């Protein structure tokens, strides 16, 4: 019984730990993505192609026409960005929307030349659709905002080019160089972003790319980012542009986290299953050992159902104790692991294990443990109830 109890405690605790870690890292990834790219991105104008059909009614001779969508035409970039933003801001879930012009450039200084992506942003409103302000690790946001030729570069690019705030860089597009001053270095933790994105004022970017009125996309922040996927179709219908919610943009990584959670949960579930098997064998042995006691209870007037209930209760109490201690152990392990330092950079930035404290993990672990262990109790309990007292008592008579 102690082994079964230990199995339940360990199974529940590790299950909670696995869920809290995978969910914690997933939440951090989502926060990183939302902080860097916004909840929704409005990009590429589309136009529905309509095909007309003519229908004639034979009886009346009447004819009528109807249109049907027959594909879409796409045009890269956002057309009439101010009107698009106006339309987007009508949605209740939207906090802010900001224009971005993006394009590939070469970045160089005295040491090195690196490829990069120049992101022309509206310096004030972009802070409302991203976590750029929190992501600054060196330099000053204020200087970046004040200086028209100031840039903000990612930490990985800065390391590779040995750049520090206050130094100048040359940004070239079509072999035409432009000098900028590094005013701040940011770190999102998402390596791809930190390696290539260079933020400048959108008007400077338009000058570099010689596209004076262009907007590549509009970055949008939402009060409830979870609803981004639901809002997209309505937004598309209103602004006639492709609307890409973060759930779709990051589908691959989100699927990866989901798979990771399922795999780790499933493997830890095996501990609970083993505990259930342990409980089954323990109760089966108890039934064998207690046949006399079961028989005497039956002779005293206890029904088969009463006997079943005794064993079910025994399993129930052990399961409850196991879940209780499993919760405590799980919480302790989760807290302990969250204090362990670990430096992770790649798709997010963290210096400790990230955990998510959610009661739903505890509830799920309890429900699964309860279901498995109680199912394991049923068979021995039913076997106990089927014992015929006369057979047992007769076997013990002299």
């Amino acid at each position: 019984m102690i082994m079964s109890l230990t199995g339940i405690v360990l199974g529940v605790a590790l299950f909670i730990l696995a869920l809290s870690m995978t969910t914690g890292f997933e939440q951090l990834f989502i926060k990183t993505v939302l902080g860097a790219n916004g909840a929704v991105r409005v990009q590429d104008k589309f136009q529905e192609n309509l095909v007309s059909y003519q229908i004639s009614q034979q009886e009346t001779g009447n004819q009528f026409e109807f249109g049907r969508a027959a594909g879409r035409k796409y045009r890269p970039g956002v057309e009439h960005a101010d009107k698009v933003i106006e339309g987007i801001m009508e949605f209740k879930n939207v906090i802010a929307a900001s224009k971005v012009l993006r394009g590939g450039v070469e970045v160089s200084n005295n040491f090195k030349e690196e490829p990069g992506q120049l992101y022309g942003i509206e310096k004030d409103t972009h802070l409302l659709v991203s976590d750029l302000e929190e992501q600054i690790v060196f330099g000053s946001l204020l200087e970046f905002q004040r200086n028209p030729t100031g840039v903000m570069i990612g930490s990985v690019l800065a390391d590779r080019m040995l750049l520090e705030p206050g130094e100048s860089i040359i940004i070239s597009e079509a072999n035409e160089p432009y000098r900028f001053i590094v005013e701040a270095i940011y770190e999102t933790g998402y390596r791809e972003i930190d390696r290539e994105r260079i933020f400048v004022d959108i008007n400077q970017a338009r000058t570099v790319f010689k596209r004076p009125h262009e907007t590549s996309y509009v970055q949008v922040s939402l009060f409830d980012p979870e609803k981004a996927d639901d809002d997209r179709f309505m937004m598309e219908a209103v602004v006639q542009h492709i609307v890409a919610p973060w759930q779709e943009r990051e589908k691959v990584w989100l699927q990866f986290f989901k798979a990771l959670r399922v795999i780790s949960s499933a493997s830890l579930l095996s501990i609970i299953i083993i505990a259930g098997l342990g409980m089954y064998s323990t109760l089966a042995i108890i039934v064998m050992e207690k046949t006399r006691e079961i028989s005497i209870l039956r002779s005293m007037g206890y029904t088969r159902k009463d006997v079943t209930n005794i064993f079910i209760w025994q399993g129930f109490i052990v399961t409850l104790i196991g879940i209780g201690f499993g919760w405590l152990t799980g919480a302790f392990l989760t807290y302990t692991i969250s204090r362990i330092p670990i430096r992770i950079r790649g798709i997010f930035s963290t210096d400790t294990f990230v955990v998510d404290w959610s009661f739903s993990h505890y509830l799920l672990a309890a429900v699964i443990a309860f279901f498995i262990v109680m199912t394991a109790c049923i068979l021995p309990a039913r076997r106990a109830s089927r014992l015929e007292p006369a057979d047992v008592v007769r076997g013990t008579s002299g």
Partner: protein
Amino acid sequence: MHEGDPSKAVLSCRGVHKYLGDETQQVHVLKGVDINLYRGNTYAIVGPSGCGKSTLLYTLGLLDRQDEGHINIDGIDVTKASDEERTQIRNEKIGFVFQFHFLLPEFTATENLIIPMWKRGNRKALTMERRAHMLLQSVGLGDKTHRLANRLSGGEQQRVAIARALANDPPIVLADEPTGNLDVRNSNIVFDLLYQLSKKNNQAVLIVTHNPDIARRCDFILKMRDGVFTTMDS
């Protein structure tokens, strides 16, 4: 056996047949047993091993089901009673004492007595405890009410088993070799208890025994051979 007014018998059976074993090796154990037991009397069933004494006791005690015949307990025809009905009658009408005490070792003497009372559910917790103490007092164990069952001697355990059989004040007590596992002194104590309590509580006590001294001290001796009663002495 034991002639009298069958309608006043607390336990009566007519033409009870019982077969044991599977279809290939079936043994006809009880071959048409008739018996009437009346309140306030002690009955001993004696006979050679394998003659069907214990099988009859378990059949009359509704632990086993007869293949043929009628059984009536305290005015209730239990011949075709369901498992649930038979279980309820066992709880209310019958007390068992076996060769082995079959006490639940994890519980105290008092708790062992409360278990059948608790199942019956007609007494409050405090009343059950008081009655358990009273019964333990009556079997001479008033000072060991809170002792665990496995901390009692063999004789004491069997006395607790007798007290437990009387817990729900049943009209019938069935005892299968109740002294079979005890020395002479304890055998006498246990039998005297059964005898005196049956008189005091106006219960019918049926004892299966191999001990001729015990049998002689009962009100009636029922001799059994090959699944039927041969004679009855009083």
